[in-house]
């Protein structure tokens, strides 16, 4: 194997309160390390806020502002402008928000900040549910997944936020996964070099919420990418689409079978999910090919 050349000076500290094997913490670790010390974070209520530490301790070596659940992008805008106004334009503003705080309650201000092209890197740690409150559904929860508020399985599909963010025409939108760490780090580096609104959605298998063993978070993330349920993409200026991993190497069923939240799924439901993934995949592939971009970028 090729060694993972992603080691940077750590910006996340040991001793944080994440569950054993947490991919939220792992992802934050690498995003923070790549962003470096001249960064300020905005972290709304979510698992990440718990990981950030109980007063008077912080697990981040950079300053964090914790806003209300629904206001991350607005708070980050205020912070950004204050930094500009006080001669700190080079300091990066980084949002680390959950999917609930992004797709749902914080979506209005996110859309507005995107429309204003506010200068920030907004990273959605997408664990596909409200995990901090004990695993209820969000609009990012996929079809058929069981959560505390959808005990019989969710009846609607996952909101396509990448598409929505791309439609804002912001300079950079991307998805990433810690299972494909070099790709994730490359995207954060790329985003860091861009000014304006940069949005990334990173898939975070939640061990508790998805029903995974402690050591299986990266495996689930990898399967999600490999089966196409969570495609790795980049969208530049809202128009140039690139599918970074452009081959699917396993059926969706293999990904589903890892997770307790899909337990007891009927065959036709599995087939329906596969069909949804197929359709979305074809569309992405077509878009990516349209600009000659399929498979561009290094997946691993």
């Amino acid at each position, binding site marked *: 194997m090729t060694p993972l050349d992603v080691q940077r000076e750590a910006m996340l*500290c*040991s*001793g944080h309160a994440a569950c054993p094997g947490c991919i939220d913490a792992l992802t934050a670790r690498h995003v923070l390390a790549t962003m470096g010390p001249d960064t300020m974070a905005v972290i709304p209520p979510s698992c990440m806020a718990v990981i950030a530490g109980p007063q008077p301790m912080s697990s981040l070596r950079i300053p964090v502002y914790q806003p209300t659940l629904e206001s991350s992008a607005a708070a980050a805008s205020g912070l950004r402008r204050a930094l500009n106004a006080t001669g700190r334009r080079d300091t990066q503003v980084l949002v680390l928000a959950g999917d609930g705080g992004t797709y749902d309650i914080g979506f209005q201000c996110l859309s507005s900040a995107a429309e204003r092209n506010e200068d920030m890197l907004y990273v959605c740690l997408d664990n596909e549910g409200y995990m901090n409150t004990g695993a209820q559904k969000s609009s990012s929860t996929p079809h058929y997944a069981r959560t505390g508020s959808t005990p019989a399985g969710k009846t609607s599909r996952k909101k396509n936020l990448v598409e929505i963010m791309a439609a804002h025409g912001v300079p950079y939108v991307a998805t990433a996964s810690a299972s494909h760490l070099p790709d994730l780090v490359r995207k954060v580096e790329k985003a860091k070099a861009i000014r304006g609104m940069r949005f990334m959605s990173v898939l975070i298998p939640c061990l508790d919420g998805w029903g995974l063993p402690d050591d299986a978070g990266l495996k689930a993330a990898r399967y999600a990418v490999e089966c196409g349920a969570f495609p790795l993409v980049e969208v530049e200026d809202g128009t140039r689409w690139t599918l970074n991993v452009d081959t699917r190497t396993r059926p969706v069923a293999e990904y589903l079978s890892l997770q307790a939240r899909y337990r007891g799924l009927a065959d036709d439901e599995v087939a329906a999910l596969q069909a949804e993934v197929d359709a979305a995949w074809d569309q992405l592939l077509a878009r990516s090919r349209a600009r000659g971009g399929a498979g561009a970028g290094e997946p691993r």
Partner: protein
Amino acid sequence: MNQMIPPPVPTTWTTATTEAVHTGSWRAALPRYVQAPSPCHLACPVNGDIATWIRLARERDFRGAWEALTRHNPFPAIAGRVCHHPCESACNRSGYDEALSICRLERFVGDHAIAQRWSFAAPPVERDASVAVVGGGPAGLSAAYQLRRLGYRVTLHEARDALGGLMRHGIPSYRLARDVLDAEIARVVALGVDVHLSARLDTPAAWAALRSAHDAVFVATGAQRQKRLPGLDYAQPWVVDGAAWLAAANAGAPPALGRRVVVIGGGSAALDVARSARRRGHAVTVLALETRAQMPAQREEVEEALEEGVALADGAMLVAAREGPGGLRLACVRVTFLPGGPGAPFVVNRVDGSDFELHADAVVTSIGQDPDLAALDAALPADGALLAVDAVQATGADGVWAGGDVASLARFVTDAIGQGKRAAQAIDRALRSRRGDAAARRDWAPGPAAATPRDAPVELASIATHWYPRQVRAHAPRLAAAARLAGGDEVQLPLDVAQALDEASRCFSCGTCIACDTCVVVCPDLAVRRTGDGYAVLGDYCKGCGLCVAECPTGSMDMVEEVR
């Protein structure tokens, strides 16, 4: 009563990091950084630390790879050609796509060393004690080599006029080029082995003198006595002993045989006779009790023999031979062959009505050899046809060890080399009055100091295979059959550098940390740190999730339950 009142904790603005929180108390199991044997290492007759040298080769450190290889085996270029490579059958990669082409890689490294004229470093210390080695085949040479590296004075007695044993008078040059054989043997001799050629030891007095002149003796005289087929009259000119014929053929002057030759036997030796005879223009048929799949010869050898026009009558046996007007008439019958087990002989059943006849001008038998125990020191205990030895090759007679074909039914070059190595280690321990671990399992290059040695081998399940793209193994080309028959050149061609590097990159490095940092990088708790050339898990913070273990591409991490 003057108590210090601590300042109150600020209600906002953090003043410290979470490093004050020791989350290690959450866990029930702790990952352990280990160095563990790979299955190939355990299957390898010389316990050749395969993961280590392949890793070095992959990193283009061919010198390092050769040095790692030759810690166990002075003959990588030879073994890379003739080894029966049980390592490959054991290779973890075979459960993923295809086993590694370990043997071909070993040849690549060995050939490279010959081309570079690399030689062995002189022993770091010279010792006064002296050891006599009797027999200059692979077992004897291996022991002599290891003992010289340890600084002992070594005297080697060989009955013939050249070193190599069956590697020279058994294995033909189209499988093992003589310049390769010579180069690797010369390198061993150059270490300072006192070689006595044409020095056959066969009298009790000679053995006694030898024993008293040295601190230890290693007997590696091989198995010289040809087994004979009971129904055949070896006095007839048309009945030939395979080994003798082959030895002569290898030396360039084989006795003449008629045009049509039937070779009896299913092992490597029989095929070597057959193929050598083909190279001399004979029409050759191999008659073997075993079916093709059961034959002890390697699959590739059989394939190559067929390519070269050798006919195969497998699952059959000779019933009677008589001379007729147009030559020999060999009455044969089809049989079913049931292989025996340890202590149980094989069973052959004739298939009724399956008689057939072969026409020939000569019959060559190649059905195995036994040691010539009569020539040896009568004081040495025997075990049937073999010398009796224990797990470290000790004969039980004071100061005498034995190995190779003389003391083993594992009739392979690398088994002989491995026994020579183990005997040398045992001799060393005895001469230095050291107690030692008989097991060779841990006989691999020392890993990072931080790694805990573990005996349990690495299983495929503990390799994070997803790091390795699926890729079939390197297939080394073979010389075209016509060219083989015409020139007698080596049949197996070498891997080129690109192929070798590619193949080396397929290795999972089972149980041998490759310092890839994956464990460091995947820990959500930043609880794995590099320490020098190894890694350490920080017990204060590790929550025991097992991610580092699950993602390690080499199986160099395992989980150990903790009881608190």
